[in-house]
């Protein structure tokens, strides 16, 4: 089918969905590939940001403000998760001098 540049250039709802899908996939890739616990937490933050983008994009294209309010609650959860997650990571680092998750198997009970 002929590629009409018009729909690629003019920004519509599709563009925001594709951008957030790409960001979400990069976040998932980060979680799967990286060994460092802190970078895994960062990739989760990236995935949550991609979700925020979808919320705001649909909030604009449906002219309904609820999407933007959802972004606040996602932000709160992400911030609380990052805060407690990093506190745990620091406690582990101090105890085992190690942040590489592959060596966490020896966390005996």
């Amino acid at each position, binding site marked *: 089918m002929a590629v009409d540049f018009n729909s690629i250039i003019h920004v519509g709802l599709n563009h925001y969905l594709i951008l957030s899908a790409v960001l979400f996939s990069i976040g998932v890739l980060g979680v799967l590939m990286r060994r460092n616990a802190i970078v895994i937490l960062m990739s989760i933050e990236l995935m949550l940001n991609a979700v925020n983008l979808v919320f705001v994009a649909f909030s604009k294209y449906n002219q309904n403000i609820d999407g933007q309010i959802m972004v*606040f609650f996602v*932000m*709160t959860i992400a*911030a*609380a998760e*990052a*805060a407690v997650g*990093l*506190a745990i990571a*620091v406690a582990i680092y101090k105890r085992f001098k190690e942040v590489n998750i592959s060596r966490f198997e020896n966390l005996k009970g």
Partner: protein
Amino acid sequence: MIQQLAPVLVLIVVVVGFVVVSLSLTFLAGPKRKPTAQKQMPYECGIPGIDNQTTKFSVKFYLTAILFILFDIEVIFLYPWALIYTDFLNYGPFIFVEMMVFMAILTFGFIYVWKANALDWD
């Protein structure tokens, strides 16, 4: 929307241009000297550094940052509330009670942090 964002982007370009030009200017104009060993050492008033770069870190720095995040969320919820507070007072005390409960719970958290002397700097 575009009138508000365009000046910010133009200013970013101007500032980055200014930084790059001034750094490259010093790079070109400055005298080129062979870096001697003494100069390269981290500056410690002349006494050679003892242990390597890792410092014995204290808990307090990142605990302050964590508490900052959690109280920053409270500030972000306070901003929109402040805008509509006086207007919605006419519909009764609901908007007042709502925020007082929110503030009470978080002030309780702050008092807990204070009493658990997480804020005392050793």
